[in-house]
């Protein structure tokens, strides 16, 4: 992916192309007067993201301190400040913002412009068949250029000289703080040099007074080739405002015209940032049709995909449901056949009928036959208990235990007076033991037998001088055990 920055000046367009690793690929200038439309096409025909910038005169910069470190609060303050900046509540005002973390709080930088400026800018580019994906501003592009290629922690005073105008920007930590634009450019340097210098000095003094007499590192970019001489000259004349450092960018050796393309390189560098970090003056009304179309296609594709997946899910579910319902119908039909054979019912299920209707019909038919025969005995019998007691070898494991008496009582059972009475059997055993410990062990062993003994009820234990008595209730047989005993 390539990123191309377009710096549109009077009579010429400066292009800078970088790749996604921020390597400078190409620098080009097209003279508009010669109408080299073909050259323009050649440049932007590459698969590149095009970004242009609004002139410094069309964008106002304003900084505000935000005394908060909470993200939500900062967002709310910025929204409020944006509204207060647009005092005329003019919908055509565009206010973009970015925040910069400072030592204790945050600083918000507002870029204020008008939609008409953006429209004019786009119309001018349109003449050359250029429809940029993004529109930023010269001040931001310059700060990006300086912070990437001439990094410095102090305040930078950048003078960008265009052909007919000059832009002065104070940059600190990758963000422009103040900017000043005046209509004297490279063309006027010979004839109106003093006026030009006065304007620069005026801007310097003004910014210095706002920043508590800060010294600015001076950097000159743009059309003028004698950067060093100009910088030295200005610094000599105003040493209390400007100073100069000699640390030039290493790229300058490879690209001697690097500073001429400061804005276009800065724009391209900014394009590589995440779309939320880079400025975009193209609001929806000015948004590139190409991107709107792309967004529309993306939306349609997502919707179509969602529709496709939904259709697949719907069809699959219906297929599986029908398959399962068919299986259920078969089960019901075979169950009804069984019922018919066993109970001589006249039940007739129609497999083509609704599954729920069939289920309801069969349910009713089966429930008709559910009547219990009350005389079947589900209580554990005395022989059940004695056989279990013998097979468990309790007495062999406890030879010191001697059973003195045993009783089995069927306390409750379904009878003619109360057909629904539950079964309840109590066993009582009297026994002798050599010592209490042995008797207790015997009791504990019985308490573990959950299959036979109902341990949810009390297992009663008592002791007389000569013997021990233990009584407990038995579990009832299951339906199958009870039915076939």
């Amino acid at each position, binding site marked *: 992916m390539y990123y191309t920055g377009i710096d549109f000046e009077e009579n010429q367009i400066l292009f800078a192309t970088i790749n996604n690793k921020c390597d400078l690929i190409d620098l080009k200038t097209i003279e508009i007067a010669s109408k080299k439309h073909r050259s323009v096409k050649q440049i932007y025909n590459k698969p590149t993201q095009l970004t242009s910038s609004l002139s410094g005169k069309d964008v106002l910069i304003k900084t505000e301190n935000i005394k908060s470190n909470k993200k939500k609060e900062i967002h709310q303050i910025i929204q409020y400040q944006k509204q207060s900046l647009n005092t005329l509540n003019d919908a055509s005002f565009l206010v973009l913002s970015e925040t910069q973390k400072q030592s204790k709080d945050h600083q918000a930088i507002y870029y204020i412009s008008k939609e008409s400026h953006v429209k004019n800018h786009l119309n001018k580019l349109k003449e050359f068949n250029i429809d940029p994906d993004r529109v930023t501003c010269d001040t931001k592009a310059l700060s990006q250029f300086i912070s990437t290629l001439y990094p410095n922690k102090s305040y930078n005073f950048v003078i960008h000289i265009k052909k007919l105008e000059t832009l002065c920007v104070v940059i600190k930590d990758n963000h422009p703080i103040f900017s000043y634009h005046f209509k004297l450019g490279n063309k006027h340097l010979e004839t109106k040099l003093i006026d030009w210098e006065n304007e620069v000095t005026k801007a310097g003094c003004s910014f210095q007074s706002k920043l508590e007499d800060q010294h600015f590192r001076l950097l000159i970019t743009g059309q003028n080739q004698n950067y060093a001489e100009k910088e030295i000259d200005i610094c000599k004349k105003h040493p209390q405002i400007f100073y100069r450092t000699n640390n030039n960018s290493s790229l300058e050796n490879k690209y001697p015209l690097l500073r001429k393309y400061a804005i276009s390189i800065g724009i391209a560098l900014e394009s590589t940032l995440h779309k939320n970090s880079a400025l975009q003056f193209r609001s*929806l009304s000015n*948004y590139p049709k190409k*991107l*709107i*179309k*792309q*967004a*529309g*296609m*993306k*939306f*349609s594709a*997502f*919707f179509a995909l*969602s529709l496709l*997946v*939904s259709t697949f*899910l*719907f069809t699959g*579910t*219906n297929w599986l*449901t029908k398959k*399962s*319902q068919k299986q*259920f119908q078969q*089960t*019901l039909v075979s169950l009804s056949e*069984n019922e018919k054979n*066993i109970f001589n019912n006249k039940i007739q299920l129609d497999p083509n009928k609704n*599954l*729920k209707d069939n*289920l309801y019909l*069969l349910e009713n038919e*089966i*429930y008709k036959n*559910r009547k219990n*025969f009350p005389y*079947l*005995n589900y*209580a554990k*019998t*005395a*022989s059940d208990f*004695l*056989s279990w007691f013998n097979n468990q070898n309790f007495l062999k494991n406890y030879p010191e235990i*001697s*059973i*003195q*008496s*045993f*009783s*089995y*009582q*069927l306390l409750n*059972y379904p*009878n*003619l007076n109360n057909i629904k009475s539950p079964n309840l059997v109590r066993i009582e055993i009297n026994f002798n033991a050599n010592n209490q410990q042995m008797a207790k062990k015997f009791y504990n062993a019985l308490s573990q037998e959950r299959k036979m003994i109902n341990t949810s009820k009390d297992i009663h234990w008592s002791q007389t001088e000569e013997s021990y008595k233990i009584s407990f209730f038995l579990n009832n047989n299951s*339906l*199958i055990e009870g*039915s076939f005993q």
Partner: protein
Amino acid sequence: MIKIGSFFLQKKNFFKALCIIFLPLFITTGYVIHQYYSLKQTQEKINHLIEFSNEVFLKRVAKEKFLSLHENSSPTFIEEQLEPLTFLAKEKDSLNKISSHPAFTNNALLQSRLQKISSNTNKLSFRQESVLKTAQVIESEENLTQIIELDYSELCNLIHLIEKAYIKGKPQFLIKEIEVKASNSNLNNQTLHLTKLNLIKREFKKR
């Protein structure tokens, strides 16, 4: 496409656009979940119905089996099958052998023991109480009238005969209460005293 794109790009429409994209998926997912639970519910109902049908079948089979066994039951089963039973056969044998020995021919203790276990006082005898009748069944309580001496294997056989033995025409017997006490006979043979035996007897008429 331009109109769709413009709609999609507007910040205020972002959630609307997301909703539109995911609407078919939401609806279908709802439908899938509904169908899944509906099928699951039907499956559970059918399983329950099969289980219940098996239960009903087993009950019916058990009822048929029960009635075929106890139908037209004999009202004199106790008199014919239980009351003639004799107990302590082993002890009786050994006592007879000992008593035939010249040294024990006149042993009073031995003779008295032999007489006691051989007499009618050591036989089952029941008294019928609280009789209830319906068109289908006569239910009564049969209580043992005297204490019986018997050994453990005879006790098990007796209980088995009452509760479990499959004899055509046998009434249904439920042991309501049984009490057995260990006791040593005078001759130190281990015997048991059957002190209580209360039975529920149900005689079923022919259908």
